[in-house]
């Protein structure tokens, strides 16, 4: 296990380096002068010079890169040029809200996906299976920014059951989490279905039935336990993608998380803050992928020897 962990960690390091380098390079992609873009047209030259110096953009590229990486190692992501607040601090304040939303979305999606996937597999080829299949396709085809407003229309405006926006108790969480969960539920349902179909044909299931176990016990105690293993991988990969998807969901529901901070940084052309947000989301994505691999290797030891 230790050897697997070390190998997996070593494989992650180059990816982290690539991400850090690409995020560093982003500000140099800005056409023309990024400082002029940030300050807007007609900004006085001394002001441009001052900000350029403050952000270190008047240094040679290599020196800028060294400073950037040295700052990152100490957890310093720079300073927001709009409000002079530390980027790391701004992100740390908003990150818990995004994590809360992401976890809630995963829970909501599992509540729907696992039963739906099992039903589709058990009723393969029948009406229920086909209906669930069509629902899954709808789920992956509906973007958050189409579902979100439609859910607000239904649950907040027509039925008056849930608040439109903001962060508070469970009632505030349901609509944004539901919005984010739909796509994930659709993908997970498909995964549970195909995984269960495979498990239902295994020899151990025949043995379980032959020794007289009720179908329900065989299904839930044997097939489902094994069938959920590959789902862990999908959930891990999707949890990372959900973090990025939160940018849109948080905008719709005015959820005060990292996604909304990203959009605010884009609108304010606050490039240091934007770089910090993108880096944080990407590194979390990589960390979740790593964690998924480790968890998977614990529940399915075969993976360690591949």
């Amino acid at each position, binding site marked *: 296990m230790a050897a697997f962990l070390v190998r997996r960690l070593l494989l992650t390091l180059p990816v982290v380096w690539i991400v850090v380098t690409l995020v560093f390079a982003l500000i140099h992609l800005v056409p023309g002068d990024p400082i002029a873009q940030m300050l807007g047209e007609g900004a006085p030259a001394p002001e441009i010079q001052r900000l350029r110096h403050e952000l270190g953009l008047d240094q040679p590229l290599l020196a800028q890169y060294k400073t950037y990486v040295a700052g990152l190692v100490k957890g310093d992501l720079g300073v927001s040029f709009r409000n002079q607040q530390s980027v790391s601090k701004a992100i740390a304040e908003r990150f818990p809200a995004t994590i809360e939303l992401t976890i809630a979305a995963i829970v909501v999606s599992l509540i729907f996906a696992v039963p739906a996937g099992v039903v589709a597999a058990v009723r393969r080829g029948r009406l229920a299976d086909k209906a669930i299949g069509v629902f899954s396709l709808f789920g992956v*085809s509906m973007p958050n920014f189409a579902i979100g*407003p439609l859910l607000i229309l239904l649950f907040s405006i027509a039925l008056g059951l849930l608040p439109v926006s903001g962060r508070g108790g469970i009632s505030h969480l349901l609509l944004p989490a539901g919005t984010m969960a739909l796509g994930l539920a659709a993908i997970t349902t498909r995964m549970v279905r195909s995984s269960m179909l495979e498990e239902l044909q295994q020899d151990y299931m025949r043995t379980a039935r032959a020794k007289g176990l009720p179908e329900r016990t065989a299904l839930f105690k044997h097939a489902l336990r094994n069938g959920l293993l590959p789902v862990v991988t999908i959930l891990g990969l999707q949890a990372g993608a959900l*973090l990025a998807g939160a940018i849109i969901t948080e905008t719709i529901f005015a959820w005060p998380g990292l996604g909304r901070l990203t959009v605010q940084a884009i609108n304010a052309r606050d490039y240091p803050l934007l770089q910090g947000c993108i880096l944080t989301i990407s590194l979390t994505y990589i960390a979740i992928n790593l964690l998924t691999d480790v968890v998977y290797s614990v529940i399915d030891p075969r993976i360690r020897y591949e």
Partner: protein
Amino acid sequence: MSSFFRRNKLAALGLLIIAFLTFVALLAPWIVPYDPSVQNLPTRLEGPSWDHPFGNDELGRDILSRVLLGTRVSMRVGAMVVLLSGIMGVLLGGFAGYAGGKADTFVTVIVINSLMAFPGILLAIALVAFLGPGIDRLIFALSVIGLAGYARLARGQVLKVKTMEFVEAARALGASGPRVFFLHVLPSIIQPILVQASIGMAAAILMEASLSFLGLGIAPPTPSWGAMLNDGRSHLFDAPHMVVFPSVALVLTVLSFNFLGDAFRDWLDPKSLKS
């Protein structure tokens, strides 16, 4: 092919809708009932009526006309992104798989892994936010992100195909490396690439709409479904039709490409068909 569509009703429906959307996209400027950018403030936020079947937006513009012209924008971006990312990705991944060695390592580690280290939508947002708005930059950013998927697929397929007997036979007959690659290897991997293209079209349309929703995509006044949804967000209480019609258009389009891609994937993958 016709038997394929007879067996896959959803794929047939998808193809029918795509044909209709293509027709609308090509003829949009001539079939729109009103000029989509002409403002008529006295009729702002009016709901659906005989004159304006989809109602009007906050500037009194006809939503049907804007949805129709938005089809053109979405299909154009989708098609361009699929074409560019498909060609770049297949050539890059195919070459890496075919050549092997250091070229393969470079493409796999530097290009594919770098691009896949980011969630797709995040990289799209990052590139467009820093490159600035504009349809060309948007197409460029989405093509760069999309090419990793094609490159990985093409590389895997070429690795499988290049050891097959017909490729060896072509080599034994004296065909040059590029000739074997372009005339024998590439045509034999085209089917999975087409499946990827169909799903890629749906993904590109969704990404364009997402970026336009965030104000990073198509610049106004050119109509884009994503931007229309963003405009409608602030009028959910008084003009819900502003959200409903662009949503339906977007979901229908993406769903059609997914129906088609899904059916093709099942058709090509016997394991998936069995299950």
